[in-house]
């Protein structure tokens, strides 16, 4: 390790401004600070600083995503073997390894493209590499359908990093959650490829699906008026869907990690779930009303709690809505923000079957409104402070 430190220290002058390898500066700095916490000490202000930094924060979020990733891999294998009717003969490792080989390329493409752009921007702007993409780079694969072509993943990642983040000034300045920008980009740019029933289950060209296989997600089925999933399957994650969002169990493990470490905002998670439940109940109430098409009536009527375990709801509530940069910043604002995400997600999902992925749109929409919510919360705070001035005066 001494050798590594010496290497980085020795090469440091070579990448400084004006030196021969300056164009490698951000790469050098990125790897150096990744391996070694820098020796910078406080120049002004407080002399001591907390040991937590953005690397620690982000690595904990990545850690929280690992259960979803692993179960997602397993489920990819499971859905594949189920589709070709060989589930009985395939063992646990067959399923997992198949999923691993399918998912890994998506993860690698996402990280390679995203980090490449991050490094380039850091170099251009002369600032340090931001750790934000460590999380985005993991989120993006997890919200992709498994059969998304890799080039689409690459294009979407590039779009998200450049237009979702860097144009605003990088991590901390973005308005929308970059991972959702990637997903939304694909959803609207390649609707033909990204919706329908062919992207959710991994199938090789030579594979012959079993009779009755549709490849549709429970959400699509539900929108079409037939409910054919068991709640247990949806909870454990054995249904078709985007790679990381199917297993509510894995997401819950991640949520526990985030809440225990204090990195994830439990208020946003709780209020999002509350919003979803409230909207689910409202829809249940109207399920029997006249004028609804039979399909809609079925979807309206699914028990409200099942909304929490299908589609991207749980994943969005735990990992997407809580992104501290794009969420509301005030405490009151966070409650409102989360609650409205929950409401909108279920509303869009059920009432507008053209967009079954209501969660993505709901979060992006509320990302947009988060500064507005904060503005009113701060105005309220100011008003209350001014009142104090009048009373004592």
């Amino acid at each position: 390790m001494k050798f590594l430190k010496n290497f980085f220290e020795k090469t440091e002058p070579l990448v400084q401004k004006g030196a021969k390898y300056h164009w490698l500066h951000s790469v050098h700095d990125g790897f150096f600070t990744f391996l070694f916490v820098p020796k910078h000490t406080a120049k002004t202000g407080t002399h001591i600083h907390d040991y937590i930094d953005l690397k620690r924060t982000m690595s904990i979020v990545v850690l929280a995503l690992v259960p979803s990733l692993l179960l997602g891999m397993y489920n990819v294998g499971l859905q594949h073997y189920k589709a070709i009717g060989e589930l009985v003969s395939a063992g646990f490792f067959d399923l997992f390894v198949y999923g691993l080989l399918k998912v890994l390329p998506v993860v690698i493409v996402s990280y390679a493209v995203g980090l490449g752009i991050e490094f380039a921007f850091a170099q251009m702007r002369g600032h340090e590499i931001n750790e934000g993409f460590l999380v985005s780079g993991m989120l993006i694969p997890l919200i992709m359908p498994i059969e998304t072509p890799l080039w689409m993943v690459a294009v979407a990642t590039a779009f998200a990093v450049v237009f979702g983040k860097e144009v605003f000034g990088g991590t901390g300045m973005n308005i929308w959650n970059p991972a959702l920008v990637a997903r939304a980009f694909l959803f609207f740019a390649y609707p033909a490829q990204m919706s329908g029933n062919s992207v959710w289950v991994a199938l090789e060209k030579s594979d012959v699906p079993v009779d009755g296989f549709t490849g549709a997600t429970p959400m699509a089925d539900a929108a079409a008026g037939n409910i054919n999933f068991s709640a247990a399957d949806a909870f454990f994650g054995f249904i078709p869907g985007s790679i990381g969002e199917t297993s509510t169990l894995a997401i819950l493990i991640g949520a526990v990690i985030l809440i225990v470490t204090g990195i994830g905002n439990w208020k946003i998670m709780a209020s999002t779930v509350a919003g979803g439940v409230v909207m689910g109940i409202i829809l249940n109430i109207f399920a029997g009303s006249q004028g609804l098409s039979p399909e809609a009536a079925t979807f309206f009527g699914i028990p409200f709690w099942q909304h929490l375990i299908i589609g991207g709801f749980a994943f969005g509530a735990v990992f997407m809505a809580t992104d501290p940069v794009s969420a509301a910043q005030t405490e009151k604002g966070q409650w409102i923000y989360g609650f409205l995400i929950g409401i909108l997600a279920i509303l869009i999902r059920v009432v507008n079957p053209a967009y079954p992925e209501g969660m993505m749109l709901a979060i992006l929409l509320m990302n947009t409104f988060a500064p507005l919510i904060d503005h009113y919360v701060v105005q309220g705070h100011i008003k209350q402070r001014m009142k104090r001035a009048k009373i004592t005066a």
Partner: protein
Amino acid sequence: MSDVIKLRKGLDIRLKGSAETVLETLPAPATVALKPTDFPGLTPKLSVKPGHEVKAGDALFYDKYHPEVVFTAPIGGRVASVNRGERRRILEVVIETDAAAGSADFKKANPDELSAEEVKEQLLKSGLWPFIKRRPYGVVASPQDKPKNIFISTFDTAPLAPDYNFIMEGQLGTFQTGIDALAKLTEGKVFLGVSEKSVFTTIKNTEIKQFSGPHPAGNVGVQIHHISPVNKGEVVWTVNPQDVLFIGRLFETGKLDFTKVFALAGSEAEKPKYLQTLLGAPVASVTDGRLKKVNYKQRIISGNVLTGKRVKSMNYIGFYDSLISVIPEGDEYELLGWASPGVDKFTASKTFLSKLFPKKEYELNANLHGGERAFVLSGQYEKVVPMNILPVFLLKACLVNDIDKMEQLGIYEVIEEDFALCEYVCTSKIKVQDILRSGIETMIKELG
């Protein structure tokens, strides 16, 4: 006594090396210095030249815009040098001490029998005035101010802070005299913020308010906020407990006596304890021979580790400080430090295993533990600011110099020390205190 004001938000940083309650009296230092840089916003004008003989209480320099506010020699002797920095800014006025020079004479009187004007004049002339600071902004009070109230916090909750109960032993009478003098200067009240076990509860002529809770409960700014907050157009004054003693001594004896007790503390102090010396004593006179002999760098701080100034041993202790903290510099790389379990890493977050040991004391160094980033995490600052203030939004207003917003969000109520913990906990290593000070400077420049 009135009810206890309980504060929940905040953070006690458990550092190794708090001072033992042992007092050592040091010989009078060979030199002392007064530093205009200890007074934010001051434009000093010299009244002396190197070579001048001075008594304790003779003016060394004064405020260009308030010439009646003078800064006087803490002890008699000869002006040795005026040390200047960039653009000839005065950094230090150094005096070679001479015990025979004595103190200038002032009126010896019971403050109760003096008028407010007389008390004020005595404080101004003797150079004790600069010990009175004003809120908003935490700068030296202006003699024209009509303070709504005067606040004194008699306990300090900052890491390694000195215990004023110990320092005050045998001096409460003098403290009372100082309070009586201060009480003349306001039409409002003198509020004493006290901790749970406090010797100050016997002090009269004041209203006593008890506070409990983690740091910054001992910050006078926090106490003001909970007792009688500063609104636009209002001014309150604050004084440190030891500085009240100087005022008390002046009225009791008619002479100036700047004897002061400092705590020498921190993990790098050989034997952390209390030392009695003079205001403006050289750092070396306190630290020489009292630090651990080690083969890494140490950082000496005049003041506490959150708000103090970094000093070298040839510098002088700050005007308002009662604490010298010494910690390791920590200018070393740490392999994959961000990934370690961190049993020995104190943190306000819950991301290191040290969280499992709520009583342990830690040795912290001056390393930033990470690179500076854009602001990312929300909710961190709010947990350590026990006031009805939104720190992030106030800081943003400071960054964009939005005077209206700063005013509305509470710039009048806070100074750097009140937000120091925000800077400590910040994941993105943002320089909160610098930002706040720049906001305050904008306010002073624009509104006076």
